């Protein structure tokens, strides 16, 4: 089979700079060498059929309603060596711990602001700051029970955190299904290679959610906006895997500041809500008055300590892109440690000199909306048209505080099946970090891959695909 090698200056996850297969990826080399093109094509078709049958499709925002699309799955796994994962894991633990401390601080003591490390206005005037969280005591002071931290590997070979997702990070169902798919299609690969298991993720998530309540035997539910949501498959999947009820707003009600679930055997009090609904829609009596997907009175139950909401309300201020540049300082401030994972250098357009630089270098930079997500509201300078740059120039000038810019990083690549054989495609990694009694995660995460040649946008809503992610245990195979 024809394998296109990465071009010079790029970091490839499988091939080193001499186009030799990295030692920990040896299993792949043998597999790809032996693989018969027809067999692979057959397996790819099989994967497509299986994913369709499972119903892992997603709805793309901005397209006609009801267009379910399959997220393309690539058969070639991304492989991470044991020592590398150890380091990533330590860095992720450290980062999520600091972010939880930060969220506690900004709703209680404001130490980091008093210390002059983050300007008060950037935190408090932020739209994601929830005054309603003021002084609220949460069990174990945990705000972010589930974090999805987006990592990329730059051409220098090092990992960088691209963004922290602290609201309702999604994608973990793809991570789990991708593994199941690989084990089904290529069981022999797993027999030869010590790939760390990940199928205990739902158990860890359930443990984390139960540990978030003071009740030793809490009732946990997953609150979904319903089947028209793009991640509904995942909501149903996780609820089923954890053995908890999947509910929608109208299934819950509040009496005497307590939340109840309607069941066939009568009302049942709910202790923990794993919500996949944005803050503003949780309770129409405090947020958006038109919300039909929330639970009226939920805020009163939360505020009086009778229910846990995971993730907490008001976590969005911690993953806002204008707060992101301060995370390394948070780690030093709260933990007294040096950050293990690197941040991408960031220009904040709210600063005059930064804005000047950004406007003069739009063609080189990636510009992002501070509160944008999903690859929307983003300019990739080197791939942009003059018209797009002009649009961003106006937008930045009108609301500088809405934008940040970063150098265009060269995301690492990994061999991927394309129309003409196998070619390198850029990818990122989203590990899911769970904070309960302790901080836990399953090895790896969701690997997203940009399927268009040269593209750096991996979001599924923008035509990205996924791969299985292997973290090797012990010796390379």
């Amino acid at each position: 089979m024809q394998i296109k090698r990465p071009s010079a200056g790029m970091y490839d996850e499988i091939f080193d700079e001499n186009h030799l297969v990295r030692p920990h990826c040896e299993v792949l080399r043998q597999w790809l060498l032996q693989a018969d093109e027809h067999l692979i094509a057959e397996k790819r078709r099989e994967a497509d059929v299986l994913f369709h049958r499972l119903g892992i499709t997603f709805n793309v925002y901005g397209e006609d309603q009801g267009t379910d699309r399959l997220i393309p799955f690539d058969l070639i796994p991304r492989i991470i060596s044991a020592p590398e994962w150890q380091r990533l894991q330590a860095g992720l633990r450290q980062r999520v711990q600091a972010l939880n401390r930060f969220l506690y601080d900004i709703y209680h003591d404001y130490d980091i602001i008093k210390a002059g490390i983050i300007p008060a206005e950037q935190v408090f005037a932020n739209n994601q700051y929830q005054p309603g969280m003021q002084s609220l005591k949460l069990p174990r002071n945990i705000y972010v029970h589930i974090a999805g931290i987006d990592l990329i590997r730059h051409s220098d070979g090092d990992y960088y955190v691209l963004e922290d997702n602290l609201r309702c990070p999604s994608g973990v169902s793809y991570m789990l299904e991708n593994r199941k798919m690989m084990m089904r299609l290529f069981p022999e690969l797993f027999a030869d290679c010590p790939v760390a298991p990940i199928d205990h993720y739902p158990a860890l998530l359930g443990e984390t959610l139960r540990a978030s309540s003071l009740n030793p035997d809490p009732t946990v539910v997953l609150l979904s906006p319903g089947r028209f949501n793009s991640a509904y498959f995942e909501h149903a999947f996780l609820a089923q895997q954890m053995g908890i009820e999947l509910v929608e707003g109208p299934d819950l009600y509040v009496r005497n500041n307590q939340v109840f679930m309607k069941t066939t055997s009568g009302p049942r009090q709910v202790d923990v809500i794993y919500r996949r609904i944005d803050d503003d829609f949780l309770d129409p009596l405090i947020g958006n008055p038109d919300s039909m997907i929330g639970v009226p009175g939920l805020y009163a139950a939360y505020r009086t300590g009778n229910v846990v909401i995971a993730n907490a309300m008001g976590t969005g201020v911690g993953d806002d892109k204008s707060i992101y540049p301060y995370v390394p300082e948070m780690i030093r401030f709260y933990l007294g440690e040096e950050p293990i994972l690197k941040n991408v250098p960031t220009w904040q357009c709210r600063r005059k000199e930064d804005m000047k630089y950004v406007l003069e270098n739009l063609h080189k930079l990636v510009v992002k909306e501070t509160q944008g997500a999903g690859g929307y509201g983003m300019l990739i300078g080197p791939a942009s048209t003059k018209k797009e740059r002009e649009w961003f120039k106006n937008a930045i000038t009108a609301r500088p505080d809405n934008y940040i810019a970063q150098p265009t990083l060269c995301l690492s690549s990994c061999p991927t099946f394309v129309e003409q054989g196998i070619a390198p495609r850029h990818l990122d990694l989203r590990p899911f970090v769970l904070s309960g009694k302790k901080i836990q995660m399953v090895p790896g995460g969701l690997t997203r891959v940009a399927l268009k040649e040269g593209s750096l946008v991996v979001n599924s809503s923008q035509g990205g695909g996924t791969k299985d992610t292997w973290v090797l245990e012990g010796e390379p195979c």
Partner: protein
Amino acid sequence: MRLRIKHDTTYRYESPISGSIQYIRLRPRNTTQQRVVEWHLHTPGDTSQMIDGFGNQVTVMTLDDEFSEITLTAEGTVELTGKPLALNDSVFPTQVLLRFTRLTEPDAELKAFASQFSPNKRGLLRMMALIRDRIAFTPGVTTVNHTASEAFKMHAGVCQDHTHVFIACCRYIGVPVRYVSGYVHSHDDHHIATHAWAEAFLGRNWHTFDVVNNLNVAESHIKLAVGLDYLDAAPVRGVRQGGGVEVLSTVARVSRMTEAQ
């Protein structure tokens, strides 16, 4: 000065409602400017209490039976101390009050208007007077969904609109400001006693800006709740099952008590 308040809020429904939950902010708290001598809130439902993030006392009421009409009655006696506003009684940093909300996001016209004022007391007093002149006090033309920019364009509205316009302008020029809902005593007994005004944070002090009355002091005001805008401080926010069209009527009387009382 001691004030006696009686405030009835009545909802009449086209057809009976079968259930409801409401957040009711009709319970004043003690502040430097007011002391609650006695207070009662009567509702037809079950109630529980919470203090929200702004420090407001919120009564949560639920109804499970059928009702064609419900009345909430708040009544009591409050002593006004005549003292100025506390230096900083905000439970959180004042920068939160710089944030625009859907109701207070200024459009280009409102921004242009706001830009002519300096972010100091003189500037804000002038701004208050001009807003009062521009927006004629006209009940019934706006609803709770009208934004500051809309009311500004319409040249008409009620205290809530005046306050939203003032808030939008203050935030635009960088002055932290909060929405206040409450009662005001007036010598004219027919005056509407439920009221809204603003408190702006200048330097190190809070200042009252009662835009409708073009007043800079809260000499006859009773504070019920504060927030970023009306939605945070609303006396009642609720949802109900059934009911069809609703007719709301509010009667609030604030009278001054004599020594003998």
